[in-house]
């Protein structure tokens, strides 16, 4: 009994700084914002210089799939946000289901992106591809930006999914609890950023008229 008491008393006091952790995540998100911001700036510049080329090239994109992907990501942001409330209310099972649902949404997005890209590549529409020879400078720029920006975004979706999967594991094993969930929040923040980036990518690439 004495030994047990000693063990408890000797535990080092673990200091946690959730606000600091959150700030750290936000600072990282700003670097991501400026990364994509630079690409959006390139897009803006070249669209300004080649308005007709961009308009023509955008017709190759399927706005329906783009809209579906937008809805998928918005819904996945919704589910990951809800998972935090669920955890705070000690509804662990619901939190887990919501996180799994978020991952399923991410997967759905990637599958759509795979089909979109495959179709383009089959038609020879890719950097240095055969179809590009017949395109104007504006169209070439558009597709270059399309692949880089949606590609980089896709990579972020994958990274976000890994982050959420790791956090999901921690929730299941009670390493993240109703009073200790900053890691879950941080994963959520990253995922919301991925959603926001797509919110801008969608109208700029798919809805050019």
């Amino acid at each position, binding site marked *: 009994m004495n030994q047990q008491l000693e063990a408890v008393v000797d535990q080092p006091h673990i200091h946690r700084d959730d606000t600091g952790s959150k700030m750290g995540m*936000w600072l990282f998100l700003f670097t991501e914002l400026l990364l994509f911001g630079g690409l959006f700036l390139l897009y803006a510049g070249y669209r300004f210089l080649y308005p007709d080329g961009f308009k023509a090239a955008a017709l190759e994109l399927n706005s329906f799939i783009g809209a579906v992907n937008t809805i998928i990501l918005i819904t996945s942001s919704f589910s990951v946000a809800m998972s935090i409330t669920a955890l705070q209310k000690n509804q662990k099972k619901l939190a887990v289901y919501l996180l799994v649902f978020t991952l399923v949404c991410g997967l759905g997005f990637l599958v759509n992106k795979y089909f979109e890209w495959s179709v383009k590549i089959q038609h020879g529409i890719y950097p240095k591809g055969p179809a590009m020879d017949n395109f104007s400078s504006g169209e070439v720029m558009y597709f270059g930006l399309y692949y880089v920006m949606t590609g980089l975004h896709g990579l972020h979706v994958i990274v976000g999914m890994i982050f959420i999967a790791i956090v999901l594991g921690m929730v299941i094993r009670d390493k993240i609890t109703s009073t200790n969930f900053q890691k879950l929040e941080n994963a959520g923040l990253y995922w919301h950023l991925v959603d926001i980036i797509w919110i801008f990518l969608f109208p700029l690439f798919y809805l050019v008229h």
Partner: protein
Amino acid sequence: MSEHNTESHSISYGTYVMVWLGLLALTAITVSVSGFEFGAITVIIALLIAVAKSLLVGNYFMHLKFEKAIFKIFIAVCIVTFLIMIVLTFSDLSFR
């Protein structure tokens, strides 16, 4: 003894559902507006709607509305920096 999360404020499911529906509605508006012939300002309308969606995601999903003021200052500095980048770039491009 570890600290527990001092921020006990949790956003209700109902609020999240409203935000989600709002986002879906704005998406529908974006898609339908792009069908109309507004010419050059179509882009501006699309961007404004995207900004509105981002505000919803940022304030509610990302919790910014309920955070300490310093977080909002952080994000404002970031956005202003980016806007300056755009303005400077276009002040060059527009006059070439």
